[in-house]
């Protein structure tokens, strides 16, 4: 997030797109609802009606995969009606002319049939967005598309056109789905960067790390998850070490992942439960849950906060950092740490954004990075003194249809997400009986009108097939889902949505097009 969670209350307009905060980030959802009650205007774009839609000023139910067309359409209207922030554009941005040229054809009349919404609604949405200090909230509904990166870029264009960057109540705010997805990226858990997104081919960066680590660091670009899985299938990747992930359920095309994992010479899985992934391992290492170890997580607003040990772990389980240190020591790196705080000190030495962070400084309250030195109090709003790169760049992007399209064999589109009561692959929430009582099994949401056309009853057992595979699940009638579109939560191993999802990737970052699958539906006979 460019802005903080507390800043929600300062927004005059809140634009939620591809995100369902009341279920997936409930505390932020509560704050959005309160901001709305206190007078903020709320606009929402989603193919599926969400809880917040009920009190929104405008809810646009757009066709799956058409975000960029809508956003370009909004920018078109803003420019056409002179609602842009001319001063901000002039002072703080570059390449505006290019953006203007590209969005010119995205008239509301052109966009309306693409998105399946009325032209006037697009105009109204743009006008509301431009009517005051506006904050954008988005999540995987923007990113899990073949054009996911461009979706984010188009939101950045929208925010910049109205000068909503670096100011209170503005910003572009991705709601990150996992407790430490921000931190895992910050820590260099990515194939192309070291900590703090530093480029390992940069000579200064390379030197800094080689001095700290006392060894040469690799320069060959690494592989992304989809490439790793393909590499496993083709036997170029022979050994895979998976810590705290369950790709069998969370990654697209489950049959492909199963084949990849089973092709490996050696699979190491470190986890707290015997997950569907761990079941296929050669060695399983019993790790510790969050309440059984010390450390830090970095939240969606870049706040680095303490994780504290409350209880001991079961049996012989060990803190993950101890397991990794032991392995590293046995393999020839002799650095030892007495406590995770010492690891944080090392992180601070090599990471500009974390330089001012220490366990002592975040004992009472976390700090929002960048924290460039030990007296710095953190950065609640990014780009507050003008865009960090100097000028904000307008990178105009075109709408492109999803890679996956309906066909004669697969005439419907399926999208997916989470529900309030479960988290991801249910490794944890599936073991909490009360949560299971609320949401016990896989289901597919279908609009009652579509349901009648198909001749299914609410609760009917159905078979859903895509080009990748098939599952059986139960129908749940929901008026809030668009006609002819299906929605499934991806939590459940039995009736798993990711058997159906495909591996079309975003060319820029490699995110799979998880939100769009073409499927067929038939009755399932027990």
């Amino acid at each position, binding site marked *: 997030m460019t802005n*903080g969670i507390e800043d929600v209350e300062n927004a005059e307009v809140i634009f939620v797109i591809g995100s369902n905060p009341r279920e997936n980030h409930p505390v932020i959802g*509560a704050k959005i*609802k*309160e901001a709305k*009650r206190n007078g903020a205007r709320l606009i929402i774009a989603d193919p599926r009606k969400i809880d917040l839609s009920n009190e929104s000023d405008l809810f646009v139910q757009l066709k799956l995969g058409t975000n960029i067309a809508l956003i370009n359409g909004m920018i078109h209207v803003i420019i056409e009606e002179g609602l842009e922030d001319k001063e901000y554009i002039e002072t703080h941005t570059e390449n505006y002319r290019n953006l203007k040229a590209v969005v010119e054809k995205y008239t509301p009349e052109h966009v309306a049939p693409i998105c399946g919404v009325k032209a006037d609604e697009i105009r109204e949405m743009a006008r509301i967005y431009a009517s005051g200090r506006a904050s954008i909230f988005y999540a995987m509904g923007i990113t899990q598309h073949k054009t996911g990166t461009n979706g984010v870029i188009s939101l950045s264009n929208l925010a910049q056109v109205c000068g909503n960057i670096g100011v209170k109540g503005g910003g572009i705010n991705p709601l990150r789905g*996992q407790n430490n*997805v*921000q931190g895992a*990226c*910050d820590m260099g*858990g*990515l194939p192309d960067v*070291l*900590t703090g997104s530093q480029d390992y081919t940069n000579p200064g960066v390379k030197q800094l790390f080689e001095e700290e680590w006392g060894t040469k660091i690799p320069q060959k*670009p*690494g*592989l992304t*998850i989809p490439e790793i899985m393909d590499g496993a299938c083709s036997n170029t*990747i*022979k*050994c895979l070490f*998976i810590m*705290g992930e369950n790709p069998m359920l969370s990654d697209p095309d489950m049959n492909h992942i199963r084949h990849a994992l089973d092709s490996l*010479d*050696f699979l*190491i899985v470190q986890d707290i439960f*015997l997950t569907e992934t761990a079941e296929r*391992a050669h*060695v399983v*290492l*019993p790790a510790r*849950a*969050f*309440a059984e170890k010390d*450390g*830090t*997580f970095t*939240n969606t*607003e870049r706040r680095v906060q*303490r*994780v*504290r040990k*409350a*209880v001991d772990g079961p*049996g012989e389980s060990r803190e*993950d*950092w101890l397991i990794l240190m032991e*392995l*590293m020591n*046995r393999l020839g790196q002799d650095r030892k740490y007495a406590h*995770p705080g010492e*690891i*944080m000190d090392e992180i601070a030495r090599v990471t500009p954004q974390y330089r001012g962070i220490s366990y002592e400084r975040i004992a009472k309250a976390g700090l929002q990075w960048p924290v460039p030195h030990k007296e710095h109090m953190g950065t609640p709003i990014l780009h507050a003194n003008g865009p960090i790169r100097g000028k904000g760049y307008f990178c105009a992007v075109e709408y492109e249809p999803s890679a996956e399209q309906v066909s004669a064999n697969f005439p419907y589109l399926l999208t997916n997400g989470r529900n*309030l*009561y479960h*988290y991801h692959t249910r490794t*944890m929430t599936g*073991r909490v009986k*009360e*949560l299971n009582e609320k949401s016990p099994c896989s289901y597919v949401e279908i609009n009652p009108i579509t349901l009648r056309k198909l001749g299914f009853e609410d609760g009917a057992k159905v078979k859903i097939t895509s080009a990748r595979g098939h599952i059986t699940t139960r129908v749940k009638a929901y008026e809030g889902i668009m006609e002819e579109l299906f929605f499934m939560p991806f939590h459940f191993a039995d009736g798993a949505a990711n058997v159906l999802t495909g591996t079309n990737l975003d060319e820029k970052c490699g995110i799979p097009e998880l939100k769009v699958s073409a499927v067929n539906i038939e009755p399932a006979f027990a």
Partner: protein
Amino acid sequence: MFEVIINGQKTIIREESSVLRALTGEGIQVPSFCYDERFINRHFPEETDCGLCVVEIDGKLEKSCSTVISDGMVILSDSDKVIERRKSILEKIIEDHPLDCIVCDKAGGCKLQDYCYEYGIEKSSNSCLEALPVDGSSPFFSIDPNKCIACGKCVKVCGYLQNTNILFLTETNGKRHVAVNGETLRESACGSCGNCVSVCPVGALLPKGISGTRADRWKTETVQTTCCYCGVGCQIDLKVAENKILGAGPAASGPNDGLLCVKGKFGYKFIGHSDRLKTPLIRQNGQLTEATWDEAYALITEKISGLMASDGPEAFAGLTSARCTNEENYLFQKLFRTVIGTNNIDHCARL
């Protein structure tokens, strides 16, 4: 800046605030059932107050939560008159409150119990009939209106902080108590966040499934940590006794401002689950079998060394975790980039 006299001491209060806040700032504890810092700048259609925060200001009894500090005030926080008023409030509540403290799951964490002890409420003309039905329809918590003291905290939190608005105060046979919009919790629009449970000062709103652990209440410790679910980073207070987590509630600080969702409040129960992995496992004859750490480490180092020699570093890849700590993620990529020598590291941020 305000110059006041608190319990005979000349005191300077730097910022405008309520008398209650000023007293708390001076280290004087003021009892209250309904006070919550988060309510200060919020407006509610129906104000409820318990009156227990009463103090003597310039000789008159005033509620300290709603009286703004002003220059020259003479404040007595525990004069005889104050104590007497507080006692009468507590006696009035107790008159209509079930006295099953021996078996009540709130015992040890109940403000009513604590204050009655502190103010020496030894006997009461208790006439509570416990006639109101208990709502046990939610798997997470129950509502016992008989134990409600109508402080209104849960109603405000549900309606104006969580913004779900399913609780309200009503009156049955002269008793004010909390009630649910809809027949029961199960039929209501309740999202089970449990924020009402977290603020309830008595046993009216109680998490289920904590029976049998009550005796440990008096010796629980609180450990503040960060929730393990979504990216909001809510600060959680875990209640711990004898190496067991007995409950979770929102910490007073952090981005969540004292709120949690259903997973943060009730989803900690996987931690001590019997399915947890307890020893390393090594695959032998197709079966995962229990092993020692030494055996597991030895096998891993042997395999890694062998494959390094035959296939080189690019035959290795690692998936690190958005669920693990920063320190663990840092070590994981360091392991791959140093001892193995590859950048083949990724995690599910890409998904």
